[in-house]
């Protein structure tokens, strides 16, 4: 009838939220010949996460700022942690994180939605960190001088010896040249696979393996004085 408003509908929901939920439910439930199958394995959940991210990236690339905000929410803590491990300074890491997402917003249209976002963000972040480090000349500041915010709920039952070992390893890694420091951070602190690191650093996997080999050789030298005093094992 003319003049009668339609009742409010699901349009009131954010379209991307409803679409994401619908796709998630479709993915989890496979209805076939009257039977239902719930898929609930780690692989499927990881695939679901990728699917949801791809949805956000597609929308963000089309200009949906809320979708981009969703991506920021998903990744900013990880980007900050990565920046902090490279720069060893909270304020610099915050600046690097901000700049990373500004640069990501500017180039999101060119991003291949079929690829995971985190390696791309880490690549941007790494380059931003290099610029910041060069402009502020802070390569040799000891880590004790920086505010190091720990996650709440740390396992305080770790022996002091284990904590000391981790500190020594971290300090040794942080003393390495930037290229080798970065690759060890990506491999061991970010727990990235070689192929993911290759994507972040835009280098062939064979090159990444060579760099890891050299980085570990340098790390052995850094840790050698500690090995001689029996304070730690030398990594491979």
């Amino acid at each position: 009838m003319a003049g009668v408003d339609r009742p409010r509908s699901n349009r009131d929901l954010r379209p991307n939220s409803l679409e994401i939920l619908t796709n998630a439910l479709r993915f989890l439930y496979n209805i076939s010949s009257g039977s239902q199958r719930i898929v609930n394995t780690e692989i499927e959940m990881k695939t679901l996460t990728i699917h949801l991210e791809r949805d956000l990236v597609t929308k963000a690339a089309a200009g949906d700022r809320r979708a981009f905000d969703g991506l920021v929410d998903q990744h900013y803590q990880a980007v900050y942690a990565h920046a902090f491990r490279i720069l060893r300074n909270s304020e610099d890491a915050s600046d690097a994180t901000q700049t990373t997402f500004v640069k990501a917003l500017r180039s999101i249209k060119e991003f291949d939605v079929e690829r995971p976002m985190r390696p791309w963000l880490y690549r941007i972040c790494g380059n931003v960190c290099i610029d910041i480090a060069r402009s502020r000349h802070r390569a040799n500041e000891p880590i004790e001088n920086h505010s190091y915010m720990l996650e709440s709920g740390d396992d305080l039952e770790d022996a002091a010896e284990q904590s000391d070992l981790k500190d020594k390893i971290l300090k040794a890694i942080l003393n390495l040249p930037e290229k080798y420091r970065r690759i060890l951070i990506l491999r061991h602190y970010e727990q990235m696979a070689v192929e993911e690191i290759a994507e972040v650093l835009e280098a062939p996997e064979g090159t990444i393996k060579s760099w890891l080999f050299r980085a570990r050789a340098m790390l052995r030298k850094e840790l050698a004085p500690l090995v001689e005093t029996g304070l730690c094992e030398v990594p491979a």
Partner: protein
Amino acid sequence: MTCKNLQYELDAVIDGQAPVDALFHLAICDGCRRAVADLRLLHRAAAATPRPVAPTDLRRRITEALAAEL
């Protein structure tokens, strides 16, 4: 596979994706087995290191920086 070649496959070994010839080599080489054990120690120690947590105002700062891009 030689010890030198295995050095380039250490990451595949600790990720559970070692090529078969690497596994055969590890079965007979004490030195390389120690190298794998040491790398696992490093990998686990690094993974257990507390992750830096962003300052509470960082999310707001990012929002403001992005808003300036409009």
